[in-house]
């Protein structure tokens, strides 16, 4: 009995390893980081207990892409911390009986002010792009569901999303949110 539905994934990893590495180098611009991330991809799929995956190669790329995003997000937060005030925080763990020791806080971008600025920018999007963006990102509909709701193709939805993101990037550039 095969306990590893990811056996297909493991085989795909071996088959596409070189390509994945090349992708990670191109994506991060750092060969050393790319090697590390490739290891993390392996660890992730080894631990995975998912159902059958239709396109293992695409799945692997998506895992790699998400891991890169995690790193990029972390770099951004560290940069935000440099200019932030948080110097004392409490490292509270539910399973620790004694009071926590202060540790240096890494301040993330929790800000109702940020949400307000994002909302204002989203309000300025062109009608089609704006509607698709709100349905997908704020209401949580899939691309397919948005396509059905708007009476357009999935490719049409992708086009709207691309358009929306490009517009938002331009509108928010000076705030350096993205």
């Amino acid at each position, binding site marked *: 009995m095969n306990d590893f539905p990811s056996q297909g994934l493991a085989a795909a990893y071996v088959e596409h390893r070189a390509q994945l590495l090349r992708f990670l180098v191109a994506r991060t611009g750092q060969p050393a980081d790319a090697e590390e991330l490739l290891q993390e991809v392996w660890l992730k799929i080894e631990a995975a207990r998912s159902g059958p995956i239709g396109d293992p190669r695409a799945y692997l790329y998506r895992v790699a892409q998400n891991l890169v995003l995690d790193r990029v997000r972390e770099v951004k937060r560290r940069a935000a911390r440099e200019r932030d005030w948080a110097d004392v*925080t409490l490292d509270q763990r539910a399973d620790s009986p004694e009071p926590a020791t202060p540790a240096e806080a890494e301040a993330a971008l929790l800000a*109702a002010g940020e949400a307000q600025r994002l909302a204002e920018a989203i309000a300025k999007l062109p009608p089609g792009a704006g509607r698709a963006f709100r349905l997908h990102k704020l209401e949580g509909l899939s*691309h397919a569901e948005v396509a059905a709701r708007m009476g357009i193709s999935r490719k049409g939805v992708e086009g709207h999303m691309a358009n929306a993101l490009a517009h938002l990037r331009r509108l928010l550039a000076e705030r350096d949110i993205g």
Partner: protein
Amino acid sequence: MNEAIDAAAARWFAGQDSADMDWEGFTAWLEADPRHREAFDAIALLDDEVTAQRVAIRDAVDGFARPVAIEAPERRWQWPALAAGLAAAIVAGVVLVPARQPADMVWQTEGATQTIALADDARVVLAPRSRLVALNGDARRLTLDGAAYFDVAHRPDRALTITAGGYQVRDIGTRFEISSAAAATRVAVAEGQVAVTRGDAQPIALTAGRSLVARGTDIALSPIVADQVASWRGGTLVYAHMPLALVAEDVARYSGVGVTVDPRIADRPFSGALTVGEGAALTNALAAIPDVQLRRDPAGMHLEPRRRGG
């Protein structure tokens, strides 16, 4: 910023989940120019931010929280006016700001509570007749007048500071209440831990099941049952040895009825439960305090020492 590159990055990003995503083509595009990966990072982070703030953005788009935005006056550097303006400004003690400050976000309640979503996983229930301000729109730095119950998910990378009545409460994810009024500032923790400090003083760590009453430099700690933190959300006020002056302030806030307390009994400890919103029950509970007399007049209720032989 190159719009063509951003547009391409946005197209690659939007298509990454489709069945026909060309990963090799995407790799080649990334390899073609280092600016491509930077642009893609920016788009990916922007999308990530929208996801993280989804609830708050949706609320803002719907106008749910109906914040009252206070605009700071815009000041510009203008040479002809500068000399005269500068002299006047120095005299007035005003600091010239070359750029416009982001607006404060203000929530103000009247007779009802208001629930505010600061983020997907951070919620504040603002008590009646209270005011919460996010300075320059930054929800990590809040100022509170009145009372509020905070329910903030634990995230080690996020810290909140709430300034209330001259004290700062720092937290990274807990359930707690802060109540600030003239007589005292109170902090009670239902879950997690906060640090309470005043100015540069050594912070006091307040853990779950503990509450703190601070008046000036006088600080009293006592236990509290987690369920009773911010019991006003359910319409009852529960006290164990709480100075009458503070009880009176709570009654005023939650019932809208003014209550004054004679200074001679302001520190008298009160224990019991008061139901808010039922006038007679509230009055009866207050009148039943031993050695305390309840007097009513058009201004409200007054708690005074009971006269002997009355």
